[in-house]
């Protein structure tokens, strides 16, 4: 039986008097795991502890069966890590940056070139290999970061906010890549503060809050709780009164408020059905914009820790 991808026991880390992570005890087997939490919840601290960049104040962590202590490095051949910070090797071309990373890992010049080209191709950046990092958009640099994490075909991939600043097509490509890795029996830990980003690829999540593990388990179970809470959608368009009447008649909305002639707030406990109806109306041209409150993560915190979550 193979070792778990990640095992922590009472893992804690303080920055002076600030608590970064407090008593995390968790075991993660294979698959995709969403690491959820708002900024400052301890996601990046956990990532840094897993990759040996910082050391635990208390407790321990094992990655792929190896305890991470100061001086550990062999295991990182099997671990790919894309940090949350931007790439600051500005003057390097993408291919040279990746070759450097591959050569530090022990590759010769030719092997490093092949590996770098393959990784760039995997993230759809093959044609941008010769572009300097400081001439790239943030989204492109995000993909280069992911490419460097993929260099050694890792068994464990750690992605810290990988979808920040990237366009929808690259976003889909990144999520497809995550799914593909999981199909290959590998483990991906995907840190994010946006629930629906993670929800698209996995139902398994760890929820951190103020450095503590707030919940671990199936996202779908929590989703059911969220759906019982009223949600608000703001719709702008024309002929909205007719649309609102239809929604009320079908019991899809529980309340509505006309802001002006072209704008309406809709309260609902059936958000998926509402979105479906609005999509139909949008296709007919009567809706110009649609906004839903993106507070799902905050709602989860409220449910799990009460009103003190924020």
């Amino acid at each position: 039986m193979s070792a778990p991808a990640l095992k922590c026991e009472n893992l804690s880390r303080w920055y002076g008097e600030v608590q970064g992570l407090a008593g995390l005890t968790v075991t993660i087997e294979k698959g995709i795991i969403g690491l959820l939490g708002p900024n400052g919840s301890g996601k990046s601290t956990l990532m840094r502890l897993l990759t040996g960049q910082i050391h635990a104040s208390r407790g321990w962590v094992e990655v792929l069966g190896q305890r991470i202590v100061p001086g550990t490095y062999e295991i990182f051949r099997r671990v790919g890590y894309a940090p949350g910070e931007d790439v600051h090797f500005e003057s390097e071309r993408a291919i040279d940056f990746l070759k450097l990373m591959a050569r530090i890992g022990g590759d010769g010049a030719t092997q490093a070139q092949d590996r770098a080209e393959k990784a760039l191709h995997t993230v759809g950046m093959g044609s941008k290999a010769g572009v300097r990092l400081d001439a790239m958009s943030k989204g492109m640099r995000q993909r280069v970061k992911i490419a460097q994490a993929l260099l050694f075909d890792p068994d464990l991939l750690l992605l810290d906010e990988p979808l920040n600043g990237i366009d929808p097509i690259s976003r889909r490509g990144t999520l497809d890549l995550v799914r593909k890795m999981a199909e290959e029996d590998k483990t991906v830990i995907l840190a994010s503060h946006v629930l629906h980003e993670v929800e698209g690829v996995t139902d398994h999540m760890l929820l951190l809050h103020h450095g503590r593990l707030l919940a671990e388990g199936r996202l779908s179970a929590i989703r059911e709780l969220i759906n019982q809470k009223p949600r608000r959608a703001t719709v702008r368009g024309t002929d909205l009164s007719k649309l609102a009447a239809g929604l009320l008649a079908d019991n899809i909305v529980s309340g509505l408020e006309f802001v002006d002639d072209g704008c309406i707030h809709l309260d609902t406990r059936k958000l998926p059905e509402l979105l479906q109806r609005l999509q139909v109306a949008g296709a007919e041209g009567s809706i110009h914009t649609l906004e839903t409150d993106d507070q799902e993560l905050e709602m989860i915190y409220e449910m799990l820790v009460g009103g003190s979550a924020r």
Partner: protein
Amino acid sequence: MNAITAVARFSFWRRASGMKLLGPGVIALLPCLMMAIVLIEEPIDPFELYRSYMVPATLYFVLPLVCMFIMLPVLSELYEKGSVGYLYTRPAPRWKMLVGMFLGAYTAMLPVFLACVLGPLLLGVLSGSDASMSEWLSLSMGIFAILAIAGLAYGSICVFIGVRTKRPIIWSFVVLLGLGSTMGSLPGAGQEFSLHYYLISLAYKWCGVTGSKTDLFSPLETIASVPESLFILLATSVAMMAFTALAARQRDVL
């Protein structure tokens, strides 16, 4: 060796590309400029001017400042930006990264030192020195060798400061100019605890630099032997790199 050579190449170009050597280059040519000004004003032999005044000034000011310019940001810059995490999460020991970064930046420093000695040499020869070309070459190459050896020691101290402290500029001024140049130039027993003392000793033994005729650079009361000076300078380099490796193990990447 792949890791060390790859990081060294990266580090070299990071230090040497663009206009990054312009600042250190200007500092390195200051003795040459000062020499030119004096030669216009005073009827003095350029060889004596260079050996008695400019060489001590080079070891006192130019060496530490060039080291600080080039070696200090090598790792401190990557720590400040958090980019060092990309290196430290590779499957290679950190000491290899540190050695590679050090060697690359050190190599970038050598052309600056070469300019520092070639400038006065050209000026001296062109201004009609009494000294022969071989005397000039011997003096210049001797000073270059001392700068190159000193660059290892001072450079390793800079790298250590860059990893260990969060205020590297202040600390490097204190250590290199305070404990180095100043303490090594003051009369008394404290001289021998300064690397500068061993540099001046080498300058005396290899190039006949007996100390400055000004009050700023006090002549040495005793002179260290060449083996002793070389041992102290090289041992300092090795020790500082070992301390750097220890500091890198402990310092968090944030």
